[in-house]
């Protein structure tokens, strides 16, 4: 069971991905038929070619299923294809999303300071001193950049 789970998540992620691409290309082909001639031809050609390639790729995957495809299914090394590694990836994506959320909610500079502090303290339990120093330093850097480059920050939604 566990082996199959790993396989589903890693080696065989390529199949669902190609299927998703295929679905997008079919949708694209469908939608583009409503365009005028000048806007339609290129997407039609691209989508058709893409569907052909996707089907070929799926066929190749079916035929070669089971065979060990050397460096073919992933750009990662062996140790990086465990479910734990995936879960950690998702966790860090969540951290990133939370920064983007904070960025809009409380403004860029407070979000940056809070995020760095939170990330280091909560995720890594880093000591207070380096965490605070990094956080303050980054906010100062961003503030300086904002002044020097006339950057424009989002209007915080909360205040």
């Amino acid at each position, binding site marked *: 069971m566990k082996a199959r789970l790993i396989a589903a998540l890693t080696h065989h992620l390529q199949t669902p991905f190609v299927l998703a691409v295929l679905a997008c290309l079919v949708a694209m082909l469908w939608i583009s038929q409503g365009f*005028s001639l*000048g806007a339609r031809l290129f997407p039609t050609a691209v989508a058709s070619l893409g569907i052909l390639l996707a089907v070929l790729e799926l066929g190749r995957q079916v035929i070669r299923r089971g065979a060990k495809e050397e460096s073919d299914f992933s750009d990662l090394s062996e140790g990086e294809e465990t479910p734990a590694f995936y879960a950690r990836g998702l966790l860090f994506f969540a951290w990133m999303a939370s920064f983007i959320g904070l960025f809009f909610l409380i403004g860029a500079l407070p979000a940056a300071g809070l995020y760095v502090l939170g990330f280091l303290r909560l995720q890594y339990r880093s000591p207070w001193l380096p965490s605070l120093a990094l956080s303050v330093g980054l906010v100062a850097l961003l503030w300086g950049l904002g002044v020097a480059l006339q950057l*424009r920050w989002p209007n915080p939604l909360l205040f």
Partner: protein
Amino acid sequence: MMKTRSLTALAAGLAFASASLLGTAQAADYYDGKNIRMIIPFSPGGGTDTFGRLISQYLGQHIPGEPTIVAENVTGAGGLLGSNEFAQRVDRDGTTLMTASGHLNLRAFLGLKGLRLDLDELEPVVASPMGHVTAISTQVGIEDPSEILEARGRLTKGITDPVGLLESLVALEMFDLDYRAVPGYGGRGDTRIAFERGELMINTQSTPAYLNSVQPLVDEGRVMPLYAIGFIDANGEPVRDPAVPDMITAPELYEQIHGEMPSGTIWEAFKVTVPLVQNTRGTVWAHDGIPEEAMAALRVGVEGMVNDPEFQAAAANILEGYDIMWGDDLGQIKASMAAASPEVLDFLRDMLNERFGTEFD
């Protein structure tokens, strides 16, 4: 009797003076300690952006209260995002201005799909005009502009964004010329290179660009100027382009060929399109509903700016031979819009829609 009258006059004069003093005092207060944000809905570089930056640089110091004007390029969707932000998402208190191009004005005027800018709700602050010249390759086998209708071969004309070339298209339509539109060019500069290469047969450039880059080809005998688009004066009459006063204008050429001035809807369309595009190559807009003292302060600022020799020196190169429009002259921009009948607008929209598929709301 005499005395009372003069007394009344004096009183009136005093009242007026104090009112205007008060007005300036309020105007002076209004921008005190404020910043003005200048939205430029195009990417940096290019004529309209440079004009907007020029104004941002010099206008602030002449507005009472000396606000700092910060120019900001809000790009995206061919100017739609920046325009819509100015139209819908900023406070209408005079602390936000926008620099639009003539073609953006035209898009707003025709109601391009997705554009929320309503020129009726805006007030021009200052503007700069720009003429255009159409030239033709000598490969088409004509010797004089008056033979234009006998031009042979595939009369290709490069299209960037059809609304952005409307004044040149309307002129070609006026002659009822059978030309082949080739869309896909990135900008007028790209069409000029293609024209020089011999890929395109007909090309319209801004007058300064024509004088600078197309004139050498004319001297080599490879191309021939057809006509200047020309300007339309305050009375609705066509006049010559001040930068090329010796060049025949499109309506004049029409008269030379047909023996009469153009007429009908296409002529009305020409008279609407040309001033709207050419008088406002760069237009700084404020919201119509901003406080009176803000508007007064802006007007004071513009007057001070155009009389500032430092500004005049900086502006000379950017205006490229045309006079800046300010004060009462700006009334012409709105007047030419008001003069447009719904039929003319429909005609223009239909033309763009049928020929290029452009959609309007």
